[in-house]
């Protein structure tokens, strides 16, 4: 399954990545599963993408980690927002 991943805030900064086009296993069905799969990259990915430190959006709407993912979704991972 092809998915566009975006990173903002602390994880983007610490992982040194703003976006990637990932080909993820088709058996991943939720944001939580996708995060767990990304954490398999190890090292800093495990820390930065820990569930409790991450907020997400699917197709530019804030979502809980239980949200489903679909092919061609635009998925964003970021730290808690702090604008204004």
């Amino acid at each position: 399954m092809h998915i566009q991943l975006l990173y903002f805030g602390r994880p983007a900064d610490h992982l040194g990545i703003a976006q990637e086009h990932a080909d993820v296993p088709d058996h991943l069905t939720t944001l939580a599963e996708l995060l767990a799969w990304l954490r398999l990259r190890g090292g800093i990915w495990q820390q930065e993408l820990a569930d409790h430190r991450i907020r997400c959006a699917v197709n530019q709407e804030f979502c809980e980690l239980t949200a489903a993912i679909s092919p061609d979704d635009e998925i964003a991972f970021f730290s808690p927002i702090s604008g204004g």
Partner: protein
Amino acid sequence: MNVSIQQQDFDIAAELSAVRNGNGKIGALVSFAGLVRDFSGDATIQSIYLEHYPGMSERALHKILEQATARWELLDARIVHRVGQLLPSEQIVLVITAAMHRKAAFAGCEFIIDYLKTAAPFWKKEQTSQGVVWVETRDSDVQQMQRWQRGHDQSGEKI
């Protein structure tokens, strides 16, 4: 209603003029400007860096303006939010509301900035005398936002 996310500074007087726009119904014009403070806790702030989620941030701000306009009789409202590197005392964000009566203009303006803090995808990094920190959503901002959900003071709202 207008939303602008930009690197360059904004001119409050020009933004106020754009909102007034010769509308003789306006009796009250409220503005909120957020500035970069030179301190954070015990640390001195050298600069901040703001980033946003292009596309989603504009949509989020428009949605907040729509919510405010649905709740109060606002004749116009506007948000300008800067991104990039900013120094202490620089302007970060501007919210302007115009209404016939002041109660709606005040409540609408405060609602917009409270929601912006908790519902718009912006991130702030502080470069301080004690290192670099990505600021996270403050509990106090969440509480401010939740006051509006409880309808803490409904004077000035549409009937």
